């Protein structure tokens, strides 16, 4: 038997495979296909203090190996989440991570305060990396000082592990990762989507209502892997790696680069069973390599 369990800042996961926020709804959307309790953790759609309509359509453009989205944090607000979704999620044994967003520090703080007392919430993912909103989101994630201030502000509000989700749209990811670590982050997760754009040559208009959007999927994997490696070398807190992971080999790459766990996003759209296939693939890989624990892979890159 191989041991796939990992510990992310006190959050014990039975395997290192997590769903990426915004790609998995609230879990129920995929429940017809797999037992959600087999996942390492489930990160649900980003939540804000009040309901948001998000951006107008069109919000999606396909690329040769990925997709651009411009959803813009559409959600029904934290009160609705607590009333409608958390009771259902509480019945699962899989740890639930809630991605939290806001326009300003007050909104982030208000959401986290409300989630803090919720038993169904295993950890908070502080989203300072959404590229599709004008206020908040990536505004914090591209500035080490703002990122640190926001992290320091929300950290004391809740005793649950605080994971800070970073944007790749920065010059030096290590600087941001170190800044949020120093400000009290228990872990970092990366990458959120890469800023991108697509144009319809027939209409000569942008394919997205917001002109630019966030690129995800296999196309971003090499960039994500590089940044996970850079971040993991820069900080002592655990790194959750994501960005284009579509098979177990991708997951192994991220673990070797220093990720303690991985998240799978866009690949769920192609194959709703991809998370389970990655878990099984990791088991097979460890057995074949004569390893007994997945943690032995973490940061094991030979250079």
């Amino acid at each position, binding site marked *: 038997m191989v041991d796939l369990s990992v510990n992310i800042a006190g959050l014990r996961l039975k395997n290192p495979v997590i769903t990426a926020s915004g790609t998995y*709804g609230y879990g129920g959307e995929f429940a*017809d296909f797999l037992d959600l309790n087999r996942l390492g953790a489930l990160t649900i759609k980003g939540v804000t203090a009040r309901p948001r309509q*998000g951006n107008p359509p069109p919000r*999606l*453009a396909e690329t040769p190996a990925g997709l651009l*989205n411009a*959803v813009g944090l559409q959600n029904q607000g934290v009160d609705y989440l607590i009333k409608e979704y958390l009771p259902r999620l509480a019945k699962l044994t899989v740890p639930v991570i809630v991605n939290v967003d806001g326009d300003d520090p007050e909104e982030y703080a208000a959401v986290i305060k409300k989630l803090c007392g919720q038993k169904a919430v295993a950890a908070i993912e502080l989203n300072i990396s959404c590229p599709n909103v004008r206020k908040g989101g990536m505004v914090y994630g591209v500035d080490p000082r703002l990122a640190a201030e926001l992290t320091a502000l929300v950290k004391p509000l809740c005793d649950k592990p605080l994971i800070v989700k970073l944007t790749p749209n920065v010059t030096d990811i290590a600087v941001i990762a170190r800044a949020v670590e120093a400000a009290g982050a228990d872990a970092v997760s990366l990458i959120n989507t890469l800023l991108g754009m697509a144009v319809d040559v027939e209409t000569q208009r942008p394919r997205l209502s917001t002109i630019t959007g966030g690129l995800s999927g296999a196309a971003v994997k090499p960039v994500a892997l590089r940044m996970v490696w850079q971040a993991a070398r820069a900080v002592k807190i655990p790194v959750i790696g994501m960005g284009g992971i579509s098979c177990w080999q991708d997951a192994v790459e991220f673990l070797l680069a220093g990720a303690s766990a991985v998240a799978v996003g866009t690949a769920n*759209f192609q194959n*709703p069973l991809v998370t389970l296939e990655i878990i099984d693939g990791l088991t097979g890989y460890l057995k074949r390599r004569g390893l007994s624990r997945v943690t032995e892979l973490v940061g094991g890159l030979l250079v």
Partner: protein
Amino acid sequence: MKKLASASVISVKPLSPACILLTVETGDTAGIAAGQFASISIPGVYLRRPFSVHDADGAVLSFLVKLAGKGTRALAGLRPADKISIIYPLGRGFQLSAKPAVLVGGGAGMAPLLLLAKQLQNRGIRPTVVLGGRTGSDIVRLAEFARYAEIKITTEDGSLGVQGLVTGELKALSADTAVYACGPEPMLKALHGLAQIKKFSLQLSLEALMGCGLGACLCCVTDTRTDGRVCVCTEGPVFRAEDLPW
């Protein structure tokens, strides 16, 4: 319950230079409502593609596919016994009314109307199907539609049926009619306008680019009158016309 299945291709029949009929064997197709769709994984394109169920019979599903790009051409290249991954049934289909039924399909929008005509006939309603195209070769599957429905045809160039648009055939409709439509957005908007004048009930099947097809990614939203932006993949693709802010 949504199913993820590995379907086996039975046949790919060209119906016109721009349209194929893809027939696959999959598990159970019982309980599929006309207007629901399947999300098909296509080699060579990144995202699955949504296709309305054209017909469902026992373990067999068929799809009317307009050849529009790389993905649909890849589907046209499938051979019998090839396996494709499909997720079905997805979305909300047409709500069957007891009123006299008129089904309106524009081009590839005729796809969901065959199963709809069949399901209406099973309820004792023989519908009228109005099929519209740019030209005669856009109108396909006439023999199959004729089994369940009276057929009217319009083409913009007059090469088949009446020259003109589908809306021209609907001017005499009474308020006591249920109209079910699928087709290009300008056609649906014209029908919506006509429905407001003639007061017939109207359901519209919308087309949208979809990310997940499951309501998880919120990429395929449409604006509604009272519920804000909702996913076409889960709240639609069929909407009551009065719920759309057109």
